[in-house]
């Protein structure tokens, strides 16, 4: 469990990036911080591995104040994946993945063996091990970044817009992988994005932030979607493609019982089966990813 207690951050140039932020990030769940550019997401994330130290307030991991842990040691125990992968361009893929174990003095052979396992875990072809990052596609680079983040088998994985720089199609793929990894690995993931769709897709818990990292709303995707806490939130969750309030299109109709749904902007959002105007609720079994299902396992991240 990661706990922010009334954390503030003012940069030396006077920017107040974080104002009195308090929140609990339960273990073994994925918490997504979402908000628009400059609202302080990255700053919050970096406070967790002491890349940024708070001006005020405290951050605890499983009850221990991280200010008391040596920064380098703390960082080596936390996985960190960033937007453009941040791979070391002068090291081969396998060495990139094994960076931290090698830093820690794990014998090279062991570190490499483990790195190859991780490549499999994240779905990378083992033939890529001897390449340099620049010889990979953007999506492959991101996978290497994730593998590197996992290399120390950390309890906590921080991901800062890890899929911001890739193609939407590759991105969808990576998101799917991430969901699979979450299920398989059972880590505490803190994920930053400014894409609300991505937030809803990946988050057990979503924290929507306003400027200065003020919490606009915090909850499961379903809770937020059903009851936006404010006009800001309602706006934000509909921001990138009009409102999410859907209605039935009266003109365009696909075959069979399906109806096309359109959003508040008037544009097609999807298709639903509705024989005779009656919603078919037959296979409506939404995934249970609400954090309440998982908080009972928390406490040991």
């Amino acid at each position: 469990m990661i706990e922010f207690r009334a954390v503030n951050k003012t940069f030396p140039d006077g920017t107040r990036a974080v104002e009195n932020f308090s929140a609990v990030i339960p273990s073994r769940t994925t918490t997504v911080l979402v908000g628009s550019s400059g609202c302080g997401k990255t700053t919050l994330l970096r406070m967790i591995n002491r890349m940024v130290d708070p001006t005020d307030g405290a951050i605890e991991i499983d009850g221990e104040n991280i200010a008391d842990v040596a920064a380098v040691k703390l960082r080596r125990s936390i996985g960190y994946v960033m937007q453009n992968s941040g791979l070391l361009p002068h090291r081969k893929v396998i060495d990139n993945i094994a960076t931290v174990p090698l830093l820690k003095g794990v014998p090279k052979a062991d570190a490499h063996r483990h790195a190859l396992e991780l490549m499999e875990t994240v779905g990378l072809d083992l033939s890529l091990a001897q390449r340099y990052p620049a010889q990979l596609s953007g999506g492959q680079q991101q996978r290497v970044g994730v593998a590197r983040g996992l290399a120390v088998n950390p309890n906590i994985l921080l991901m800062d817009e890890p899929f911001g720089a890739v193609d939407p199609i590759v991105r969808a793929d990576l998101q799917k992988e991430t969901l699979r990894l979450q299920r398989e690995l059972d880590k505490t993931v803190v994920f930053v994005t400014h894409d609300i769709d991505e937030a809803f897709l990946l988050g057990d818990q979503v924290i929507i932030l306003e400027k200065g990292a003020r919490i606009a709303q915090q909850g499961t995707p379903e809770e937020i979607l059903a009851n936006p806490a404010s006009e800001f939130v309602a706006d934000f969750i509909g921001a990138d493609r009009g409102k999410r309030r859907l209605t039935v299109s009266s003109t365009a109709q696909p075959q069979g019982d399906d109806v096309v749904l359109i959003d508040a902007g008037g544009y097609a959002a999807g298709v639903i089966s509705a024989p005779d105007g009656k919603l078919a609720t037959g296979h409506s079994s939404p995934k249970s990813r609400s954090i309440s299902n998982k908080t009972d396992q928390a406490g040991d991240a």
Partner: protein
Amino acid sequence: MNWIGNNLPLIGERTLDHIAITAPVILLSFLISVPIGWVANRFTASRGIVLSASGVFYAIPSLPLFVALPVILGTGLRSPVNVTIGLTLYGIALMVRSTADGLASVDPDVTQSATAMGFSDSSRFWRVELPLAGPVLLAGLRVVSVSTVSLATVVAVLGVPTLGLFFTDGVERNILGEIWAGIVMTIVIALVFDVIIVQLGRLLMPWTRSSSAAVSRPGRRTRVVAPV
């Protein structure tokens, strides 16, 4: 041109002398510039000062420097220490800028991620920033190499044997072949050093070999800023 044929051993000897003087200078310039360049890059205030100082330093006429240095150092004019230090000072003046630029060229995202992984400050510098500054350092080192090789002809006037002796002697004796031999061998040494440095760079920075081809699209020029 007769002269050249009759004096091949002498040309060889002077060429070796020239190499013996310049090679350590090039190496030293590089080694000393790294910490200075680091300081220039690390502290904003120092950057301007260090860079313009090194720029103006390059404008000091070489002859007086070599004559004044022994007075300061307490060495003899002809002493290898004097010559090496003098040439190295010029080398540093050129190299410091490249070092600072090279370190500044390292993608901050990469240094960030290195920090995030738990590199300590010094291991980050040696294992990440310095190697990644490599291509720019290499470009700077090539300039240093060429100019050192060229400048070393001047120290002949101090009685230190280099290819420069062919100029003074050639002019006195009016032997054009001798002057040409000096010029050509200087260029040859410069070219050989250049090839060696480039090859060394390829060897030490294998990642630069393939990356450009894979990343940049064919037919579109990427942003290149050559060192001036």
